[in-house]
């Protein structure tokens, strides 16, 4: 019989938790690469595919470097305590310190977000898991900015926005900061990620200005099969997004996965039926169904493991209905009609995230225990659940959710304005010239998504373009 000391990992590490957390993180990473890259690539015009996909890949890379240098500890490290204990400034942000030493990576994960029971995996696992969430957020608001944003501007916007906006919001709601202490909850990022991305999309698009009118008139998608691949990766990738957020490979992870999928299925069907019976054209459309899918996914995100199955169905139904009306009618009213949000991020992420975050305060079932093992009757150490108005007949949770939403909207709007204005000043503008915009990928990258085949065979071996091309 092997001695316990031969197990090649520390006693606090649980291989099932560690494995699931890394798998969940990888699933979330796949939502960005290639998920959003091909989803956006399929939704933009053919001449913008390369530029859009490259922004997705560089945004992901930039966020990881920032995350290692200061992002992780700023958002999830020990709080800085700028003010007296319990005050807003006490729970504002962590420290600007890198995550670089062996001890820091391989030690047991600790986070202000969870003081109930210890994590059973290392800091590297938690840092990577939290990174993929940080990384997807700027990629979501990128959807509003494509088709005119200067490439260099994107390289500056991502690290600045992650630092100023994402890390602060994450620390306040997830890192044990002020709103977390007050009792506002966000299961997997309906606020920190989606509401914030929606607001940044809207504010950013307003600052950059609209695409050329010719591009807006011709904004039909390049490839719906690519949209199908990207959307499918998003949906199933969300099993990691929400299933990873109990931080334990337990019963609530399974509930979060199941609830996420049922809310999404209802979102797809709701939007489809709205299109078939209430749209002007009365046609079921694939891209409409994808919008409904996003509404379901985003709206269930803040509540995935805290609502029961019935609650999840209502989340998908309510969110898809509200966003459908916003997409079709609110979009005609100022200021929405004046801002060119290329992919409608403010609707499918912003409004859906807000609706989902508020629904926590109504539909969360206290019988859904996040850290427990036996559902309603589990009252042991680490038992945590959330009660919405429907079960508690109290508006307390809804009020906390409302206050946190106000903060996210306000801070994101202010932070995004600061970042975009600063980058505009540094680079002398956020847009490519109209001449470049009329050509797209070839003018910016000298690459195109579908290079035209050259007919015939070359006559000479050495390339006449560059002496190195032998």
């Amino acid at each position, binding site marked *: 019989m092997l001695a316990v000391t031969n197990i090649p990992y520390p006693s606090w590490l649980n291989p099932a938790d560690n494995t699931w957390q890394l798998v969940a993180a990888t699933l979330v990473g796949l939502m960005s690469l290639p998920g959003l890259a091909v989803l956006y690539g399929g939704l933009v015009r053919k001449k913008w595919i390369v530029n859009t996909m490259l922004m997705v890949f560089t945004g992901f890379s930039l966020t990881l470097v920032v995350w290692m240098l200061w992002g992780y500890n700023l958002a999830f490290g020990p709080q800085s305590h700028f003010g007296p204990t319990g005050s807003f400034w006490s729970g504002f942000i962590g420290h600007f310190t890198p995550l670089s030493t062996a001890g820091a990576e391989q030690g047991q994960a600790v986070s202000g977000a969870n003081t109930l029971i210890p994590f059973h995996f290392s800091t590297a696992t938690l840092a990577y898991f939290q990174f993929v969430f940080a990384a997807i957020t700027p990629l979501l608001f990128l959807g509003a900015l494509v088709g005119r944003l200067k490439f260099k501007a994107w390289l500056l916007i991502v690290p600045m926005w992650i630092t100023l906006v994402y890390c602060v919001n994450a620390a306040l709601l997830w890192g044990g900061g002020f709103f977390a202490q007050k009792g506002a909850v966000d299961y997997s990022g309906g606020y920190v990620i989606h509401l914030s991305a929606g607001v940044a999309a809207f504010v950013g698009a307003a600052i950059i200005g609209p695409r050329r009118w010719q591009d807006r008139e011709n*904004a*039909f998608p390049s490839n719906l099969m690519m949209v199908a691949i990207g959307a499918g990766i998003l949906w199933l990738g969300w099993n990691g997004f929400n299933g990873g957020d109990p931080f334990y490979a337990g019963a609530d992870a399974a509930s979060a996965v199941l609830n996420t999928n049922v809310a999404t299925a209802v979102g797809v069907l709701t939007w489809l039926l709205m299109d078939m019976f209430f749209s002007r054209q009365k046609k079921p459309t694939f891209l409409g169904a994808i919008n409904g899918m996003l509404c379901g996914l985003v709206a269930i995100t803040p509540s995935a493991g805290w609502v029961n199955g019935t609650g999840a169905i209502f989340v998908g139904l309510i969110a898809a209905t509200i966003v459908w009306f916003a997409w079709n009618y609110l979009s005609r009213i100022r200021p929405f009609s004046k801002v060119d949000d290329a992919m409608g991020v403010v609707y499918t992420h912003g409004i859906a995230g807000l609706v989902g975050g508020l629904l926590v305060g109504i539909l969360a079932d206290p019988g859904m225990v996040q850290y427990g093992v036996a559902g309603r009757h589990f009252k042991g150490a680490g038992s945590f659940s959330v009660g919405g108005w429907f079960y508690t007949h109290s508006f307390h949770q809804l009020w906390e959710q409302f206050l946190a939403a106000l903060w996210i909207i306000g801070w994101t709007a202010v932070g995004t304005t600061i970042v975009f204005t600063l980058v505009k000043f540094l680079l002398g503008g956020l847009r490519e010239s109209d001449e470049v915009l009329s050509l797209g990928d070839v003018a910016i990258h000298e690459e195109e998504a579908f290079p035209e085949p050259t007919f015939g065979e070359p006559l000479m071996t050495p390339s006449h373009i560059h002496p190195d091309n032998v």
Partner: protein
Amino acid sequence: MKLVTAVVKPFKLDEVKVALTNIGVSGMTVTQARGFGRQGGHIEIYRGKEYEFDFVDKIRIEVACTDEQVEQVLDAIVSAARTGSVGDGKAWVTDVEKVVRVRTNERGPEAL
């Protein structure tokens, strides 16, 4: 010699090809084409927004033949490509001054 050019609905291509080979035509050139006639364009809806697609997909067929074959070729194309609705297409005939077979450098009707 004549060149018959026909623009027809894409799904009628195979019927036209069979009809032409049945009357002894030994070659044709086919191009994907877009255009508009009386049929006009159509609307597509993406994410709730309508886009006008002005040009409709068509197939352009080119057949070179002798003067005597022209009426037969036209009849074959019309009978095979006709559906009776708008957008069935057009065919027209032009004079061909000279035809060359590249492999043998033959000239004239023998090159067809």
